[in-house]
């Protein structure tokens, strides 16, 4: 397989803005990255950095006042930003499935879980018999440690953690090539979190499913992501193999993120970062992290840094490395 064929999703210079009465909020502003086949690609960033907007924009599921202001999203050869609704509907669930953040509201409250699974399958004209659907569901449910009664339950009868996992069941039922999981563990306890992350890892290994894992928690990314992208204020700051990014973080913000979290039994001292992320209606000129950056030079305030490949497959957007 050539390098190109190994790429499943290619996002180029994607811009997603929110209309406001004054200037638009530039939530995602020129983000480019690649998700390879059979990898877990972690997208790490703090609240308001644009990571959820990015997830929605890939499947064109964003609603006004958000709008896409340019860029390309290529699934193999298909540009999703130009595709018609019919094509998109075929792609959704079957090629790319999105697990949205609010699992509480993502399921249809008046349908049993099993009927919602059937709905997805019928919608995509897959000729599965009821028995096959049950078998396939059972297989995924076993991995997720979901008890069998979940299939015949309504969402309101399930706990938050179970709903979250029911949503994952739905997302994986058609074996999509890419699953975008937006904070899939934000509302669950640590043990369930581990179970869910282990499940994603198993799906990746058994079916070669690519997973774009969006999280605010760098520890979650460190556990299962093969590569990670660090976002800040609508921009990509760093991309690289998880091991490289953790061993040798290049961007001052990535370094600060790592200094801010303790490691149980190993690192008790943590350091905070002063200041706040910028107002995205009027982001600072130059580098968006510059007002909080310790390694600031004049150039950082004037010129926006570009994403540069500093070592093999390790990209950073910072003037220090020019």
């Amino acid at each position: 397989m050539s390098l190109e064929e190994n790429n499943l999703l290619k996002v180029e210079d994607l811009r997603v803005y929110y209309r406001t009465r004054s200037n638009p909020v530039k939530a995602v502003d020129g983000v480019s990255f690649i998700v390879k086949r059979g990898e877990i690609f972690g997208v790490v960033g703090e609240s308001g950095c644009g990571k959820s907007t990015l997830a929605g924009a890939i499947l064109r599921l964003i609603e006004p006042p958000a709008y896409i202001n340019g860029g390309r999203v290529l699934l193999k050869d298909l540009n999703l930003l130009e595709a018609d609704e019919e094509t998109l509907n075929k792609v959704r669930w079957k090629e790319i499935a999105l697990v949205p953040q609010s699992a509480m509201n993502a399921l249809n409250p008046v349908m049993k879980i099993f009927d919602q699974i059937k709905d997805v399958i019928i919608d995509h004209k897959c000729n599965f018999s009821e028995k096959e659907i049950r078998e396939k569901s059972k297989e995924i449910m076993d991995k997720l440690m979901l008890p069998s009664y979940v299939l015949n339950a309504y969402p309101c009868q399930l706990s938050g953690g179970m709903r979250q996992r029911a949503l994952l069941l739905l997302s994986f039922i058609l074996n999509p090539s890419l699953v975008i999981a937006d904070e899939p563990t934000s509302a669950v306890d640590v043990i369930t979190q581990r179970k869910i992350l282990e499940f994603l890892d198993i799906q990746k290994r058994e079916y070669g499913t690519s997973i774009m894992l969006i999280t605010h928690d760098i520890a979650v990314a460190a556990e299962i992501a093969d590569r990670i992208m660090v976002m800040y204020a609508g921009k990509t700051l760093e991309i690289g193999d998880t091991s490289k990014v953790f061993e040798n973080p290049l961007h001052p913000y990535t370094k600060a993120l790592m200094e801010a979290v303790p490691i149980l039994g190993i690192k008790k001292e943590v350091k905070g970062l002063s200041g706040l992320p910028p107002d995205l209606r009027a982001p600072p000129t130059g580098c968006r992290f510059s007002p909080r950056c310790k390694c600031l030079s004049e150039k950082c305030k004037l010129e926006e840094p570009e994403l540069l490949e500093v070592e093999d497959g390790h990209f950073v957007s910072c003037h220090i490395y020019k």
Partner: protein
Amino acid sequence: MIEVENVTKIFHVGGLLKRRRVIAVDNVSFSIPDKPTTIALVGESGSGKTTLGRLILGFIKPTYGEILWNGKNIFRMKRNEWKLYRKNVQAIFQDPYESLDPRYKVVETLMEPVKKFKIASSREEALKMIRNAIESVGLRQEILDKYPHQLSGGERQRVLLARVLLINAKLIVADEPVSMIDASLRASILNLMRDINKKFETSFLYITHDISTAYILADSILVMYLGSIVESGRFEKVVYDPKHPYVKLLIESIPVPDPKRKWKGTVKIRESEEGLLSKDIVKFRSRCKFCERCIEAKEICWKKPPPVIEIERDHKVSCFLYA
């Protein structure tokens, strides 16, 4: 300083027809010593940790049991004793957006307790104290003239910490104070809490679901599961060498921000077949609550509630495996 003795809190939930009882806190006992310390109260959602915090704050009364402050039951205190208790035991909550009155400037918010508890003798003295407190929590003086909506979540938590410093409280019940704050800002709030603990000799009851953040602060730890304390003791003893099967799983499942230290194997736990809230509470109380999920459960675990066993000094576990 505080003794919690066999405290149980039962809530009645539901309407007229489907009323049921939920045991939020089930026969819990522990004490908070006089000397300044930080105790982490850890558990997943629904474990009763917030209810226990609210009981200690005196917001709700226990169904059974007593909470003693220097030997006195806090619910049988005289008016002025109660006022003193409320001064000494302060709260900080998860959502800093809801804990500040939006109509008050920061300076007014901070003036309120000074007046109420007659901390200063004049307005000038009060302002001086407020300025000191603001400085101690790492905020600039300009913030005094701002309204809450002009502040970030981190700044609001700092204002609340300044308020506690002013009052010179002995104990702060901090219920998930950083869970709504991003990691990069969270670290400085946790460091600030640790400094307050050391410098001003204020004790903390740090209620959280996150053992990693507790690591920064805590001297000791209490782990709750469905209303009961399953394991407790010195933080390092419990976390480095957990005994209870649930606590073992909990510690093993914490994600580590270091790709070189990944989880080993898969997590071994059973999923209970019923939703936990629908449990028959009488049956449920007559045995270990972790039974159906425990892979090490023995016959006896289903028959009797587990005893509290002292493994060593400062390390207790409530489990039949050690009986």
